[in-house]
């Protein structure tokens, strides 16, 4: 492809991805083919143990596939030399259990994601403050996670995920431990990210209502995608 050609390929593309755990008996993923366009919001649903979270961890380069190919943007993950840099530069992660560091303030929890980047300290602080404003937590930036509600914590986690301007956002059951009001707030944030910033979102959920807010739902069963 020449430098003037536009890359029309999907943002995320997997082919025949398998993940077999060390004992060789459990195939968490058994030949997954998935394609997600740039700016698309895809929800992955399925029963517990079907491989949703495993797929998400492979897409985020938190783990490697046993076989198959995974491409995210221009990165071929099975050949990735520096997974840390890929995650830092391209990926935002939101977990069910927000995973905030308890001894840091909300601001510190957002800023810490940028500590490996080239941004100067002052800019990191400015950006963290700006992201907290975007998620509606300006006045709570100096609070620690224990001083925040579940919904507020998850909004801090979203702000952290966006700290390095990721091209894709992966969320693993981000609303699993939230009340319905907080669920709406977090989903609203995702929608804004997609429409305002063109971020590609892949969300894993059990919740049919949450999945309904996505552009497309992919259903998994026994390590395979059954309803593309």
């Amino acid at each position: 492809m020449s430098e003037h050609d536009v890359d029309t390929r999907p943002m995320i593309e997997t082919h025949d991805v398998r993940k077999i755990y060390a004992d060789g008996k459990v195939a968490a993923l058994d030949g997954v083919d998935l394609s997600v366009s740039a700016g698309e919001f895809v929800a992955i649903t399925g029963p517990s143990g079907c491989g949703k979270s495993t797929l998400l961890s492979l897409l985020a380069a938190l783990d490697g596939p046993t076989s198959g190919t995974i491409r995210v943007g221009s990165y071929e993950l099975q050949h990735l030399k520096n997974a840390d840099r890929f995650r830092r530069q391209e990926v935002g992660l939101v977990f069910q259990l927000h995973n905030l560091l308890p001894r840091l303030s909300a601001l510190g929890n957002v800023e810490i994601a940028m500590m490996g980047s080239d941004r100067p300290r002052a800019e990191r602080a400015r950006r963290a403050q700006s992201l907290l404003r975007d998620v509606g937590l300006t006045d709570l930036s100096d609070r620690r996670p224990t001083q925040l509600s579940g919904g507020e914590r998850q909004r801090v986690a979203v702000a952290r995920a966006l700290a390095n301007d990721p091209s894709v956002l992966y969320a693993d059951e981000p609303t699993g431990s939230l009340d319905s009001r907080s669920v709406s707030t977090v989903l609203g944030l995702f929608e804004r990210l997609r429409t305002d910033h063109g971020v590609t979102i892949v969300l894993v959920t059990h919740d049919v209502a949450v999945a309904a807010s996505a552009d497309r739902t992919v259903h998994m069963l026994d390590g395979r995608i059954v309803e593309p």
Partner: protein
Amino acid sequence: MTHFSLVIGNIWAKKARSTGIALAVALAVMTVVTLTVVSNGLENAAAAVLTIGKADFTVAQKGVSDILYSSLDNGQVAQIQSTPGVKSAVGVLLETERINAANPLFIEIGIQPSDLESFGVTILAGTAYGPDAPNEVMLGWRAAQDLGLHVGDQFKANGTSNTVVGIYSTGISYGDLGAMFPLPALQAYNRVPGSVTLVFVKVVPGLSVAKVQATFEAAHPELTTIRTASQFGRADRNLVFLKAAVTGSTVLAILIGAVIVGNTMLLSLFERTREFGLLRAIGWARSRVVALVVSESLILALIGSAIGVGLSIAVAAGLESLPQLNGVLHSSFTAEAFWRGLVVGLGMAILGSLYPAIRAANLTPVKALSNE
């Protein structure tokens, strides 16, 4: 937020763990610094003997365990005197004696009155003793001041009463804290007739001291020459052994301390598995995680080292005030002692934290995040 503020925050958040590590470092540093300053003090005291005669170099018997056990006879003194390039060679007998509780190692110098001038002795009061006077003594002005004695007073030493005939100065405080006796008298008191401990040599002006020293050593392999405190070990094996023991203790302190630091850091790693997993998941490089853990350990080591040095000053002062060591032990706090303390503290921290840091950096994010 900076790397430093993050490190300080982490240290502050785990006060018990941090205190434990800092305390382990402090105890190791205290031990090493105290041993170092004590051995430095002993070395300085021993080497001070050499400075009394203001010689270009001093000759002693080779390989003795303590320089005061060195023994040279009159014939050797004469040979030294006749060595080309030697201007003067003064044979001196050195002994120590417990005078009272405040002076457990009072220095006694046996020297012929004819050698006093070339030895750099100035008579401040009274006169010099006679060459064969059996019960005459000169006191250094500091010793006379400490003992409250004057010319004409009696000074008990070597089991007999001696008349103080003069007060002298050598210009060297160690020499001025002792007493001088006629050489034959001190030899007789100590039953070493015809023997001296050291020979203080002055080289003919204009000649190279180092060349004369080298020529002398080549001609007299049974003897050794000492020009600086660092060459003291040539004639005093005890000091060499003591310094070797201090070095060995330093290495041991680093190793034992590293195990304690490593164990504590490893426990901390288990507590913070999710945290490290998260940092790796959000893109922290392994090197950054290693730097975080090692930095925490280094900051604690610096704090522990400062506490350890403070403790060593208190311990050294306490040791000096013990009745058994009063007047014997003079701690010498040198830059080397502090550097050694710092090396111990930082060595413990780096060695102890490296393995936990590498383990933290190599945690698989997925597994670490699922850790309960």
